[in-house]
């Protein structure tokens, strides 16, 4: 059981990394990765919201939508639930954990409708996890993968700051080129888990 969960986590984190392999959530990946501190904040916020979103959407899909043959409403219902959930979390954090709210707070509204978060909720269904804990493990892996990508890329960007690319590559072009090279590195993980299982 634990072995299965670990495999799910590491598959989601490394092999199917949401940012670098599936290209979801590119907007915060490029937007907030300039400084290590904010990259870590964003990564943690995304991980947190992914776990919450899965905790809410998986039971609703399994026990409500499937039971009434309403699977085709997935997308709209998930968006509704995630948006309301993030708002609720923000209110609770503001009231009871103001310190955490100050450090995570500004990122929370940003990821309400982030495609990576919605992607986790939908992939939990399409990948057919039968147990709630499996879906949660997948969400945790995806979130950690996002955090890993953010931290790695923040390091790369700090190097780019002091590098001197040709004039036409300055700014966003060199950032995208280096992002693609980092993504290329992650393709090295493809098949690792399959080989481990053999």
């Amino acid at each position, binding site marked *: 059981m634990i072995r299965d969960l670990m495999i799910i986590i590491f598959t989601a984190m490394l092999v199917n990394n949401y940012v670098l392999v599936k290209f979801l959530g590119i907007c915060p990946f490029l937007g907030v990765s300039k400084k290590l501190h904010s990259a870590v904040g964003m990564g943690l916020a995304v991980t947190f919201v992914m776990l919450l979103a899965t905790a809410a959407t998986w039971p609703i899909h399994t026990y409500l939508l499937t039971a*009434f043959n309403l699977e085709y409403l997935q997308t709209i219902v998930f968006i*509704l639930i995630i948006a309301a959930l993030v708002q609720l979390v923000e209110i609770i954090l503001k*009231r009871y954990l103001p310190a955490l709210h100050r450090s995570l707070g500004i990122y929370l509204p940003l990821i309400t409708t982030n495609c990576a978060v919605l992607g986790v909720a939908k992939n939990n269904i399409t990948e057919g996890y039968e147990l709630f804990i499996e879906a949660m493990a997948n969400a945790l892996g995806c979130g950690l993968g996002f955090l890993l990508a953010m931290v790695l890329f923040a390091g790369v960007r700090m190097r780019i700051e002091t590098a001197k690319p040709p004039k036409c590559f300055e700014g966003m072009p060199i950032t995208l080129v280096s992002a693609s090279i980092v993504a290329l590195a992650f393709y090295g993980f493809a098949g690792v888990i399959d080989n481990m299982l053999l």
Partner: protein
Amino acid sequence: MLEAILSAAACVAGIGLICAVVLVVAAKFMAVRENALERALRECLPGVNCGACGYTGCDGYAKVLAEGTEKQTNLCIPGGDAVSQQISEALGVEFQNTVEQVAVVHCCGDCDHAVQKADYMGVQTCSGARMLYGGQQACTYGCLGKGDCAAICPYDAIYMEKGIAHVCAPKCVGCGLCVKTCPNGIISLIPDTKREVIACSNEERGARARKKCTNACIACGKCEKICPTGAIAVEENLARIDYDKCIACGKCAQVCPVGCILSADRSGRHRFSEVQ
């Protein structure tokens, strides 16, 4: 057919309704009770969140003022007297004059005095130059001269001349951004009622420091001896001024044999009006 449409609509509407009710209840019962006084104080402050008051932004300062743990109403440097006045009125206490801060550069090793050990051709920023053996000057303590501070100053109060940074005091509002930016940490804020500044940061022994820069502090201790209030102390081969004791008499600047104590009127907008 109709049944399918209705059940779908009912499902989405039901979930939406539940979410809405939960949010409304949460907003009602878990709303952060904002103090009316705190909000009024927050309105007085400029909202730049610079942190010059020593608290985490304007909200933080308004909070401690409202709670009564902070008695001083004159800590907002960018706001100056006008804000101090408003806060005093809101709190009903006596008005306190703002002690304005001004940024000073603790280096006077311009290109006529500092020895250059190399010709730096890399990225033209101080943080870049510092990575390569501590910059192109022989002295690794002083101003790197690439103007990171001038670039970040929102008020254009810093200019580069002969390879080192200078602060134009009347333009400086004492926000402290340059202090945080300088990779060598040679900029600091002092009360603008003071005149004397140790314009050197070199902590090497006198002879070694002097070989690298003819303006460097040689830690002779003359200033320490002449200071009437004991405000100057030579520590780690560098003279340092305690501004709580300094009376701005200017004697230290007169006796300094290498001329690394600068004495000038650093009063910004503020003291100027007081003198008049």
